[in-house]
């Protein structure tokens, strides 16, 4: 058994090791950069491609959004968000549960509503009139 595994290692040439190491580097790089999510600050609600509304996550509130099939209820609960009711058939959006990190997203395709959390890095801290 060990001999057979060693036979496979003999197939790998020096250039292959180079490619394998490059590939591992890419894996480490991508996981580090793409899975490093800070806590979210704001919630953006999209209908198709347009931003319908932006809310702060630091509140406890239920929003009702009209999608293309019907009403979707979105719960915001002090830093986390979920879909609590939706008119779609499979309810994937509800089963996804709570999200709380920046760039996390829940999409409801039948109703064409999606929400995503935005991190603290914004252009402006606040806007006053």
């Amino acid at each position, binding site marked *: 058994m060990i001999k057979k595994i060693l036979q496979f290692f003999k*197939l790998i040439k020096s250039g*292959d090791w180079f*490619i394998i190491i490059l*590939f591992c580097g890419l894996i480490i790089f991508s996981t580090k950069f*793409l899975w490093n999510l800070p806590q979210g600050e704001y919630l953006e609600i999209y209908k198709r*491609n347009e931003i319908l509304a932006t809310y702060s996550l630091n509140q406890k509130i239920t929003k009702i959004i009209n999608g293309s099939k019907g009403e979707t209820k979105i719960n915001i609960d002090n830093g986390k968000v979920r879909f609590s009711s939706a008119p779609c058939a499979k309810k994937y959006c509800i089963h996804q549960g709570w999200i709380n990190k920046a*760039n996390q997203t829940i999409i409801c395709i039948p109703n064409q509503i*999606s929400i995503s959390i935005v991190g603290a890095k914004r252009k402006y801290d606040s806007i006053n009139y």
Partner: protein
Amino acid sequence: MTLSTINIINRDHQIAKLSAIAVALSLIEFFLPSPIPGVKPGIANIIILYTIFKFDLRMGIWVSLIRVFVTGILLGTFLSPTFFLSLSGALFSLFSLIIFRNLNSKYFSIISFSLIASLAHIAGQFIIVRFWIIPHNGIFYLLPIFIISAFIFGLVNALVTSKLLQLNSKK
């Protein structure tokens, strides 16, 4: 009336046979359940790698494209997003193989080519997904999963192909 004749040479027969095997493998793969949705081993690519190394790159391109089109027609996904995903993956990996075809075979074996092609496959699919199917930056969150699976299955497919080539050269 003149008869138009098509000269069928041995090469065409080879392409047909290899494409048939590749189509059968991708049909088997379609019906196998996958633990992570969207991640597939791509066992049909074993045949394409085998074709490229046993014969030449031109024949590999033929087999790969025939596989994509025939599988699309058989599964009823022809011209649907699924079909374009598999087409762009196939085209990108073929392009990468064309670009890297001059790598010295003294230092680089099938494993390198398979890994490069599998990464290009993921890149091609991701470009289609990002710009057409799900135009949202959130999908980049899934990219590491696909890169890791490309690495694993690229390696496994290459090892299986080199074993196949060894068995075939002994006969």
